[in-house]
């Protein structure tokens, strides 16, 4: 079997971050998180641990909500969603997420779509995984221009949820809400601490020599390239084809 590609490592990392969840929700346009969640579901079956439920928003086939688009938020508010993914146009060192735009609100120089449900879900989903493949100082800033969702909240604010990790194309960070701030947990193969430092606009804690992000075991990789790729192809045919092509040609990037 060829080695794991960088995307496969990210997918396997997400599956690892989702260990123990019962229900994970994924946005329709998030193939890597969806793949990670599908891998976690498959692993749970292999390991005979409690089944994992996966809701892909906007999908007709993988969506078992029947109460309209409010149900995701209600469900999260009831504590029935254990994990969710969030991205951001800007993410800062305090875990604040900006989905609205750059510059002075409201008429800044760049306008993004908007906060969607982040201003709520970030508060109530216990394990929010920040995911952004691109890793650059434009995205990872010292301080966001607009807080769509804050990384941490003062005492007294109802906050059963919040960020647990940040995964990028370069590395994996843990979030500590007590500080609040990020700690680099591992660097993806082919990258370095120095590269991550240069690409990150905020300071973060790290060991002097952070370890490499763990590659999936051969068993996990086989599951990903077999069952999970098949499942993925149903909902994300374009992405699944890309992933399959990577595997057969380079075995990595």
């Amino acid at each position, binding site marked *: 079997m060829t080695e794991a590609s960088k995307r496969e490592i990210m997918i396997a990392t997400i599956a690892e971050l989702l260990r123990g969840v019962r229900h994970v929700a994924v946005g329709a346009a998030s193939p890597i998180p969806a793949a990670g969640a599908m891998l976690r579901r498959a692993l749970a079956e292999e390991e005979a641990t409690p089944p994992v439920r996966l809701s892909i928003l906007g999908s007709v086939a993988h969506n078992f909500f029947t109460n*309209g688009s409010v149900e995701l938020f209600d469900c999260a508010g009831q504590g029935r969603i254990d994990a969710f993914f969030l991205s951001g146009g800007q993410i800062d060192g305090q875990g604040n997420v900006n989905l*609205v735009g750059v510059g002075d609100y409201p*008429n800044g120089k760049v306008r993004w779509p908007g906060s969607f449900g982040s201003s709520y879900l970030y508060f109530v989903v216990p394990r929010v995984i920040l995911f952004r493949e691109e890793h650059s100082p434009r995205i990872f800033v010292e301080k966001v221009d607009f807080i*769509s969702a804050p990384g941490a909240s003062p005492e007294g604010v109802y906050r059963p949820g919040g960020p647990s990790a940040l995964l990028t194309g370069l590395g994996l960070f843990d979030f500590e809400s007590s500080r609040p701030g990020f700690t680099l947990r591992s660097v993806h193969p082919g990258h370095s601490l120095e590269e991550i430092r240069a690409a990150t606009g905020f300071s973060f804690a790290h060991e002097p020599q952070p370890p490499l992000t763990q590659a999936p075991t051969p068993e996990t990789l086989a599951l990903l390239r077999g069952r999970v790729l098949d499942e993925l192809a149903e909902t994300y045919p374009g992405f699944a084809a890309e992933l399959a092509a990577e595997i057969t040609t380079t075995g990595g990037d």
Partner: protein
Amino acid sequence: MSRPPPSTRDQLAQAATFFQSGMSLALPVDYAGVSMALTWPLLASGTKDFDLVCVPTGGLQADILIGAGRVRSIETSAMTLGEAGGAPCFNRAVREGSIVIRDATCPAIHAGLQAAQRGAPFTAMRGLLGTDVLAQRNDWRVIDNPFSDAPDPVVLIPAIRPDLALFHCPLGDRQGNVWIGRRRELATMAYAARRSLVTVERLVDDLFATEETAAGTLPALYVDQVIEVPQGARPYGLWGVYGGDLPALKRYAAEARTPEGFAAWLEEAQAEAAGIRGGAP
């Protein structure tokens, strides 16, 4: 798109009686039943100064109304053309400051509509504290939870009561009932709005004929007019019925990047909608 029969065209023209300048309009999220078909009579009516409420996010329809200069303000959790990218007229209007933007978050819009549905003046929701979304909304309030002994700030969202809800769904019947299936936000919109104008893929005899179809039906009580417009959501898809036309959305995204490009796109789309040429906008 098959050319609509004259009766549909007449009905769409009649729909103009629903439109008034200064109205607040509730529009559904892109995958859940946008009545694109109503966009053209709405524009043709010449009405403007709309306050849009996107339930809970907006896309092509809202962007067209903004591009055409008909929108005074917009309350939304996001504006996007999905895979086709950002909403060009919206982005331009925000940069230029030509519309008032009320950034929200999805569950706050649902909560506001549900408060209106229940006839309540407001409702409470978790989250939002410490966000700039909340900081920018002077029409929202924070109170200390009166049920808690410890300090516990909670956001209150006022009822959202749109003047008119516009949406498209799979089926309607002769009595004016419409079948929304799982898209229950369409019901919430209709409950909350003063009036509702609905296009449907096709008309059937009676949605209350079986409990199976009754279960997904919004009663005529909340629907002021139903118009049969096959493919009425195009170029959007209709959840569980047909998919969206991504190339058409991408074409719009590209052309509407400039005011001139948008104007040309709009002229063509309106001409097509008026039946001067074949094909859908």
